[in-house]
């Protein structure tokens, strides 16, 4: 393939092309690693991650998110960089990436680097470039901040292994929830080529953990784990299909995060949805809320959705939706209910559930106390008692409660409306329930 790289392209020109091309990758998380600086270079990592800015779309900017190159031999239908598109192409050199990362990091613009890439010549060649770049960053520049690198499907496992020892996180995008969907959207990609590196990284992480228990100073392998991403709304897949895949990835591949990316029809492909109302952001938001419920609230996908009810209710968040369909469980007594049950109450998040359990040891709690603790009483009041009494007499009836809760939504109170417009992790604090609107 002829590489159309203009020799005198400035770093600014390249950044324009290669950051622009990277922006559809949702992950910008810098969490999961905790490392102190060793005094030989700059950088450390913070377990909860840090967001350094927010873009005009309200998404967090944590990492210098760029493609190494937007040259690509593949032709994925959803991708602006696909081979058949006539778009300006550019490639960084490893030194340029290192310098940008170091200088941005010193100024506290970023938490580190997220390096992805189109496929230049072939997967091995590309993976080698990525590996070389982060190797330079770690060894020559002694950079100790966060690094997230894409594993290129089909690349030599040894290259992926080497990269894993330099990166905090690696990811391979699943792209589509089903293998058929992938075939349709990305004719050059194959499900098993995606799952293979995913499995390899998972095994690498497990082995590394064993190594680290034996030798405390053994090098870390993807300390922050791995993540993946699925595009939502390009094909007629149900939420149930998507969430079941996500659950599987968490259970069987031990992923740290699954990201959902509302489809944007960048190529104006006439066979794909035109989405005149913009990308399906509300749906994406529901998926993130459900994802949160899986990871922190001990829910299973088949509690939230079924084959007969395969899609989330757009009017009400998945947790409230579960609660109103299980009124037999409620009301729960705040001063006695166990932690797990408290978590199921709309209006009570992980933090408030913990605070309730801690504070009730000092004496029994009143509604006033709950308010101070951070419980959203407007939502919780249908589902709880304090000392045997409800906050005030109210109908316990599905339709009535749904109406009250959605009324609050319309008033922009219950569910914070602005957050409907985004699905990514707004802040990276792992238990920021309020922001996820799952409380």
């Amino acid at each position, binding site marked *: 393939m002829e590489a159309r790289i203009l020799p005198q392209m400035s*770093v*600014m020109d390249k*950044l*324009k092309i290669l*950051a*622009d091309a*990277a*922006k*559809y990758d949702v992950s910008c998380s810098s969490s999961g690693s905790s490392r*102190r*600086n060793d*005094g*030989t*270079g*700059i*950088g*450390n990592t*913070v377990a909860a991650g*840090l*967001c*350094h*800015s*927010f*873009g*005009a*779309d*309200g*998404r*967090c*900017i944590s990492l*210098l*998110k760029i493609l190494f190159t937007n040259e690509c031999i593949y032709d994925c239908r959803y991708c602006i960089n696909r081979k058949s598109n006539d778009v300006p192409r550019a490639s960084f050199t490893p030194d340029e990436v290192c310098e*940008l990362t170091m*200088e*941005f990091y*010193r*100024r*506290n*613009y970023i938490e580190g680097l997220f390096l992805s890439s189109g496929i230049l010549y072939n997967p091995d060649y590309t993976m080698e470039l990525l590996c070389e770049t982060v190797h330079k960053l770690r060894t020559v520049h002694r950079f100790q901040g966060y690094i997230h690198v894409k594993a290129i499907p089909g690349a030599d496992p040894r290259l992926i292994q080497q990269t894993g020892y330099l990166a905090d996180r690696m990811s391979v995008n699943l792209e589509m929830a089903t293998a058929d969907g992938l075939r349709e959207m990305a004719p050059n990609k194959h499900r098993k080529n995606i799952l293979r590196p995913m499995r390899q990284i998972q095994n690498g992480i497990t082995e590394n953990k064993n190594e680290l228990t034996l030798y405390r100073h053994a090098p870390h392998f993807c300390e922050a784990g791995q993540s993946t991403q699925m595009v939502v709304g390009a094909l007629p897949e149900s939420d149930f299909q998507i969430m079941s895949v996500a659950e599987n990835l968490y259970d069987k591949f031990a992923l740290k995060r699954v990201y959902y990316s*509302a489809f*944007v029809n960048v190529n104006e492909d006439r066979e794909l949805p035109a989405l005149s109302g*913009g*990308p399906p*952001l509300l749906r994406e938001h529901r998926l993130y809320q459900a994802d949160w419920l899986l990871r922190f609230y001990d829910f299973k996908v088949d509690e939230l959705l079924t084959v007969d009810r395969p899609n989330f209710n757009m009017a009400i968040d998945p947790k409230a939706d579960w609660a109103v369909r299980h009124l037999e469980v409620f009301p729960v007594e705040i001063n006695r209910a166990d932690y797990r049950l408290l978590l199921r109450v709309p209006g009570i998040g992980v933090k408030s559930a913990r*605070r309730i359990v*801690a*504070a009730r*040891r*000092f*004496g029994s*709690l009143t509604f006033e*106390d709950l308010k*101070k*603790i951070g419980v959203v009483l407007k939502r919780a009041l249908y589902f709880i008692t304090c000392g045997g009494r409800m906050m005030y007499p109210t109908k316990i009836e599905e339709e009535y409660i749904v109406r009250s809760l959605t009324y609050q939504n319309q008033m922009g109170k219950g569910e914070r409306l*602005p*957050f409907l*417009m*985004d699905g990514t992790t*707004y*802040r990276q604090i792992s238990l920021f329930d309020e922001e996820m609107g799952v409380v």
Partner: protein
Amino acid sequence: MEEKYIICEDSLEGIFTAIYDAYALREGHGHIHIQVGEEDNYRLFAAYVHSQPDAVKTDKVLRTVKDRLGEEVYGSLCRAAASYDREKGDAVYHTVVDGITAGSGRRTMENLRNPYVRKTFELARRTANEVHHELEFIRFQELEQGVLYSKIGPENNVMPFVMPHFSDRLSIENFMIHDEKRGIFGVHPAKEEWYLVSDAEGFNPQELRWSRKERQYQELFIFFHKIIAIKERYNSRLQQQMLPLRFQDYMVEFGSNE
């Protein structure tokens, strides 16, 4: 008994000394209050006592607190003491009383039914949130000699909490954080311990000279910040909610240096 107000300096040392003095009175605690700063509105029928910051007393209180209440509670007290809120002295004092005298011990911060504990908890959380934001949003600019300089204007006194983070992260850099609201500086010489400078005399930010490359990197970042947003998802309300204007005022990508 007559209400008694102990007036103390607005600092951790000031508040801890006042707590020592309050205990030294041996009059119980219900009627005693600690007020930081000036005695702005005198109350009738109240006695006022002045307390001067004292290193030995501070140290005694600090040890007792750490010992009996643990590091975590101690951390909350420090963050509450760094608050902008004038009622912090009283809140911190009565929280210590709850912990030591009423015996809540290491669990003190969980006793949210006590209004003083709740106040301390809220102030500490507010400071912690702001500290977290500053770790994210502080922007350094490179001066001629390669020194990194940052100007901030936080609501609470976050300096003691942000300096350790950057001293570790930027261990080999010379850097300086300038809290323009309080006129204090956190200074970190490369590979050394950081320290606080509160005497700003002779310092004029107008005289700072940026390095040759500073402009270039600012432009690159401003540019990056712009193109990384997805047009179809623009949402300036969300952006502002996540990144309040009072921080934006100090950030290059929002035009603070134009």
